[in-house]
């Protein structure tokens, strides 16, 4: 299972697609900090952009917003990733119920957003996720054990951000969006053609930091793609208490950047729109705000009780709009999902689940003294004193335990 990340990377053929951006994006400015960029001032479509409908039929015309359905092999790969992601998510939720994790925010039902968008950035690009986006990190090739270190309670962040070009999963809402903008601007100053992508929740759009991130990105014309995953709840608070706007993508207008309202359960649309935004950003066209309209099927985290604020009927309604089933219908109708491919994907998913169980049922060996080692680059006398005190305490405890153990043995 250590090969998961490599395997996923190797089969990552998406980037070869020549996705076409809508015509209105053609005339993009060149990257230069002093060039005047055209402000975009178009209302996003009120109807979410969709390339596959819920029955798995391809959508064309105005409803597709000028985007084209990705090629079949791209869709198959997106399907594979979603299936693997869901299996992982279900596994982790189960482990959490068994008490193996301190908490886990599931993205069940949001796979089209999570996987569609993360698949649209390249290896050199950076991703700034939230607590909910573990499956995007998995898709990015990070080992389940590393992703889950924080939720298991071992350490706040368990993966190498530089190696994967993924920031840590932000809990303070919307704060990470500013990090994404800052990094994009730094890269641009260095003529380094990377793109930064960040995910936010619908609730997070209410925070001042979301606004400041959108605004800085637009003023600086940074190569940043904002994905708002509108799963219609912020813990218990429904969208109607969060915004009075018709769509969250409408916010883009106020920053002079393009906004897209997308069916967040249609991975084809999510991939196509985010990919176009990534290309636009990379070629100097500035930031894009994308709203994926989706639904959080699970509870907010394991400690939540959704029966207090939403009906089982609503959940059922959205379960019938499952993003994986939708793509599956299309792939089946296209004859692209052979039994052997299905079996291979199931195996891959089970591999990930098994590996996740393995790492999560092995207790990590933690060194409490490490608590003092990373706070500052420059060592501090006072911290070394405190470290020494804890060290002595632990030694005392160990020798007490040793004595007890020796006593017991005798």
């Amino acid at each position: 299972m250590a090969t998961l990340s490599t395997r996923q990377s190797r089969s990552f053929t998406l980037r070869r697609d020549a996705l076409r951006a809508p015509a209105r994006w053609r005339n993009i400015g060149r990257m230069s900090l002093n060039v005047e960029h055209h402000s975009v001032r178009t209302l996003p479509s009120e109807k979410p952009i969709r390339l596959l409908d819920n029955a798995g039929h391809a959508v064309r015309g105005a409803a597709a917003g000028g985007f084209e359905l990705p090629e079949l092999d791209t869709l198959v790969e997106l399907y594979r990733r979603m299936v693997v992601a869901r299996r992982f998510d279900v596994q982790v939720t189960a482990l959490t119920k068994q008490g193996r994790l301190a908490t886990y925010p599931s993205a069940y039902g949001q796979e089209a957003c999570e996987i569609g968008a993360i698949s649209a950035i390249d290896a050199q690009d950076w991703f700034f996720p939230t607590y909910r986006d573990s499956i995007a990190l998995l898709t990015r090739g990070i080992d389940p054990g590393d992703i889950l270190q924080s939720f298991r309670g071992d350490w706040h962040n368990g993966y190498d951000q530089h190696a994967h070009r993924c920031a840590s999963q932000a809990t303070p809402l919307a704060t990470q969006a500013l990090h994404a903008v800052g990094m994009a601007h730094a890269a641009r100053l260095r003529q380094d053609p990377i793109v930064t992508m960040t995910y936010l929740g619908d609730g997070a759009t209410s925070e001042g930091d979301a606004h400041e991130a959108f605004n800085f990105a637009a003023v600086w014309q940074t190569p940043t793609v904002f994905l708002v995953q509108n799963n219609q709840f912020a813990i218990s608070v429904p969208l109607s208490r969060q915004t009075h706007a018709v769509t969250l993508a409408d916010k883009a207008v106020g920053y002079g950047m393009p906004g897209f309202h997308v069916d967040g359960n249609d991975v084809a649309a999510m991939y196509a729109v985010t990919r176009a935004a990534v290309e636009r950003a990379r070629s100097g066209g500035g930031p894009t705000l994308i709203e994926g309209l989706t639904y959080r099927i699970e509870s907010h985290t394991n400690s939540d009780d959704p029966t207090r604020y939403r009906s089982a009927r609503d959940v059922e309604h959205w379960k019938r709009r499952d993003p994986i089933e939708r793509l599956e219908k299309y792939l089946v109708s296209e004859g692209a999902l052979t039994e052997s491919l299905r079996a291979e994907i199931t195996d891959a998913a089970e591999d990930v689940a098994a590996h996740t169980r393995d790492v999560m049922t092995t207790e990590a060996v933690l060194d409490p003294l490490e608590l003092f080692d990373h706070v500052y680059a420059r060592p501090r006398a006072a911290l070394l004193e405190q470290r020494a005190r804890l060290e002595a305490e632990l030694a005392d405890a160990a020798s007490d335990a040793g004595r007890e153990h020796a006593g017991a043995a005798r």
Partner: protein
Amino acid sequence: MTATTTEQETPAASAPTQLTMAGALNAALRDAMAADDRVVVYGEDVGPLGGVFRVTDGLQAQFGEDRIWDSPLAESGIIGTAIGMAMYGMRPVVEMQFDAFSYPAFEQMVSHVAKMRNRTKGRMSLPMVVRIPCAGAIGGVEHHSDSSEAYWTATPGLTVVMPSNPADAYSMLREAIDSDDPVVFMEPKSRYWSKAPISLPVTTAPMDRAVVVREGTDVTLLGYGPTVRTALEAADAASAEGLSIEVVDLRSLSPFDDETVGASVRKTSRAAVIHEAAQFGGYGAEVAARVTERNFHHLAAPVLRVTGFDIPYPSPKLEEHYLPTADRVLAALDTWEWDD
């Protein structure tokens, strides 16, 4: 245990029932809302969910959405609009979901909540309560176990209190809501489910007073919120070794009750303050500094601080090593010269 010590009987009290701190807070909100229709409650998830700690459980069903509602997810917005409501004459009680999620509201807290009354020579007061489920020891992931009290106590204009037990929780919250000054009302999360027998409505000591919750002669332990229990545990353990420890529950962090604390320290001549927050620049520094300033010649030893380490709050699996325990308190007392 501490509850009975600080509780004072009121005539209309019902028969005592076992109540958690969360339940006592819920009852306080309910009674305050019933008593005064200027009291409104809002924040994130306080409505149908009843708050992530269920402190507002059932209140929306009882009082309706015009009295208690879910606001958009923006803490500066919550505090900022509460200021406007208080200016109008309402008595908003708002919730910040965790200490760390009050930080976006810092400017509104420091530049307006704390300063409005003084700015206007008392013409405009802000009778509002900011509830903050606070501190750690609940196995929370990052940002869910900060202790923010030092930020608020360093801010002139704010009143900062923290109950340690259900009876105080009820009584102090009622008093905070009735207060014409803005109050930062900190609720130690790890004590939410601690129980005590209470007859409601209960009135304990005034919100600005510390209370001696256990008498002793050799050492004064100063705790607040979650560390009152720690202090009591240490006192129990020490009494087995013949050391008589007095425990003071500070209750009010700002103002500080110099009188009650001073009297205790002058009696015992030794003191230690206990808190979860990091030591450096923590609230214990103020306690140690002012107790020393005012009682120097009565002190046989320096005022000690038994606190968290000077590091960010650790992840769940390591928090036990961070938190001040009764053992650490006793170990700290051992560092004193005990030659008298």
